């Protein structure tokens, strides 16, 4: 992630949270936090609980971030932010936490009176293949709640639309036939079936490595009549290290009412 991109990311994040920029120069910014963000980012629970108990006037902090030391004036003091820095990770977690669930409508201006909007459930998933190694795949899947059609790369589709949190004038939403809960189930099954079709050489290789280490372990203790506790500890550790598994995490998702019945 380039420093420039980080700067933009921060701008968008603080703007979306209703913060004001006291200063916003090349390579640095000073942000006036809102109460909500102060609580989320500044790690001062005692101040906030004290304030709530005494009923004082909240005074959220302002923070200066430096996104590019070269560009920012030398006199500026602040927190340096880069990809991988704990602060950026925290901001990311906050964004994730604040927007795990969403509902939006496509912003259309219907020609004729009363245009329908079709309900879709979208889920952004992180699929992790884990053994002693790990890799992830990001997937975005949408499911039409009327007839169950599935669409891949759904997030990309959504990002090309104008979306609004309020239902636009002269539009009405179709009531889902498939309830969100069973839509989630359908998406899960779809993902699971896809994974079952994969060959999973990575897992086979991990099992081979696992078995090799198990063989070594048995070899190590072969002279002993009674196996010591360390044998079982070691064996369990190998299982945890190598046993292949796939985990699916929901990054976020929600309901989208779109003009299309099919995508």
């Amino acid at each position, binding site marked *: *992630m380039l420093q420039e991109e980080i700067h933009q*990311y921060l701008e968008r*994040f603080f703007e*979306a*949270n209703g913060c004001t920029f006291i200063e916003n120069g090349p390579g640095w910014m000073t942000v006036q936090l809102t109460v909500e963000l102060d609580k989320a980012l500044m790690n001062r629970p005692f101040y906030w609980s004290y304030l709530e108990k005494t009923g004082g006037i909240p005074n959220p902090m302002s923070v200066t971030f430096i996104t590019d030391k070269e560009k920012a004036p030398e006199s500026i003091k602040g927190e340096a932010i880069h*990809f*991988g*820095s704990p602060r950026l990770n925290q901001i*990311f977690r906050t*964004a*994730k936490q*604040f*927007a*795990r*669930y*969403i509902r*939006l409508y496509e912003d259309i201006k219907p020609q004729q009176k009363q245009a329908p909007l079709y309900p879709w459930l979208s*889920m*952004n998933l*992180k699929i992790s293949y*884990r053994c*002693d*190694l*790990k890799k*992830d*795949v*990001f997937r975005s899947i949408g499911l039409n709640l009327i007839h169950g059609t599935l669409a891949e790369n759904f997030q990309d589709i959504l*990002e090309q639309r104008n979306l609004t*949190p309020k239902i636009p004038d002269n539009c009405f939403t179709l009531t889902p036939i498939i309830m*969100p*809960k069973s839509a*989630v189930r359908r998406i899960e099954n779809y993902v*699971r079936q896809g*994974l079952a079709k994969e*060959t*999973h050489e*990575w897992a086979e290789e991990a*099992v081979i490595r696992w078995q090799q280490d198990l063989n*070594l*372990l048995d*070899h*190590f203790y*072969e*002279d002993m009549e009674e196996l010591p506790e*360390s044998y079982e*500890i070691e064996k*369990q*550790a190998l299982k945890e*290290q190598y046993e*292949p*598994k*796939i*985990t*699916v*995490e*929901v*990054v*976020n*998702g*929600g309901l989208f009412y779109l003009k299309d019945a099919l995508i």
Partner: protein
Amino acid sequence: MEVNYEFDHSWETELMDRYENDGPWGKWELYQLAVEMEKRLVIPEFEGLQAPKHLVNVNPLPHQLETARQVVEKMNGKAILADEVGLGKTIEAGLILKEYMIRGLAKKVLILVPASLVSQWVAELNQKFHIPAVGQKKSYMWEQYDCIVSSIDTAKRSPHRDIIYKQQYDMVIIDEAHKLKNPNTKNYEFVQGLKKKFCLLLTATPIQNRVEEIFHLVSLLKPGHLGSETNFSKKYKKRDRHVKEDEHLKQLVNKVMIRNRRINTGLEWTKRRVETVLIDFSKEEREMYDALKILRIAHDGYSYAGFSLLTLQREACSSREAVFVTLKNLLKKAEQPSPALEEAVTKIIKKIEAIKTNSKAEKALELIQSIQDKVIIFTEYRATQLYLQWFLKQNGITSVPFRGGFKRGKKDWMRQLFENHAQVLIATEAGGEGINLQFCHHMINFDLPWNPMRLEQRIGRVHRLGQEKDVHIYNFATKKTVEEHILQLLYEKIHLFERVIGELDDILTCLEFGKLEDHLLDVFQNSQSEGEMKIKMENLTQMIEFAETLRKQEEDADAARRNTSIS
């Protein structure tokens, strides 16, 4: 193949709540920001390193990156990092740990290091790697914190031990792991009982004397990798073992161990300038040294209490104080010393009392005054350490002591005092490990250790990555003493100082050489005459030289093989 599969169901429950209650719903912009970042944090491949992208406060060197990559990809996260001193094993360990943390494979981490290094590790992990490591202070911390740095001596003690044994560690890192070579120690047993997925053992000296040492280290990491103990001894301990098996052992070890050499890193190193400083005893000192021999006569084979003439002779080369302390202990331990012994000791103590100056200390003072810069003095003996501190103070030179036994905070403090205020740091052997003193580039070896690896550890404190100037090493040895013999054998014949450690430990294990220290003891203690001693020394030197040529031939053969395979 079918793989276990877990789907995160927590999300949908809340979705239904919000669906029924018509919200609350998140903002589209934040939703997009979350997705964007998640996509960036996705790890697209099993191979390769993610960590460097996340780090700006450290610029890993090529050999460090390569090491980290190999450990993750080829060694399944279990490795002995055995770079030569000063090549940045800590950075390698940090990179590997960070990689596993980014990949979400490591969360609960235990880092065991010498007490003097705890705060340094904590600082480096936090500053360079953004890993929220904390130094262990209270026993509740083992459970509450995910990444703890502690000394092994604390960790193995009650109540810590029991709490630690209940934790499931994703990764355990042990610094200065050569201390875990003996499987009959509490430390070894303690480490063996840890529940760990990934494990890194850091040591600059994986083999000091015997080939079994590597067996015990590897068995902590990967039990069975070198077979069972009986099997291993059968195969490798035999005196007449074949070179073929050696090759096999090497290959096996290389699967779990990475050892970068200075010469192979392609880095510019500052030079080591080694100077031997020979010192003449004063008349009184010589008399004390010679008087020690009467002990052999006074008490036949008196090494029963763990003392030996050799020890005393070496001490005599260091300071009269060192001799005095040992003699006092000797009498105490003997409980009812024979009159002959008592008489001998009294006689020696008389000689000690007659000594007015310490010739070595005088020389050291002269040197320090001419250097006019920071100097580290290493001695093996505490009594000498104390004496030197007093002596330097008498002559207006500020010094700080350093010992292995110091508490963590005190070590940090002493290091800081040395860096900012004092001219001299006087360290004993145990204090040699684990402090980085790059800001200093003069070192006096006031007395010389038997074990060349220990010497390398000493030098490594100053001659490491980050040292910008040439390092001056002064080896003190007293003429016509056991010390001069050691110097001749170890440090001149095999050019220990100028060469790097890796060569030497290879040389020593190339032959089933036995413990070097045992050989030396034999030479110095059992020889009846000066002549016999010389002959034995000669033999020993030849043996080392022989091992060296053998190794060279092997290397040449290896090189030839590689060349043919390329063409």
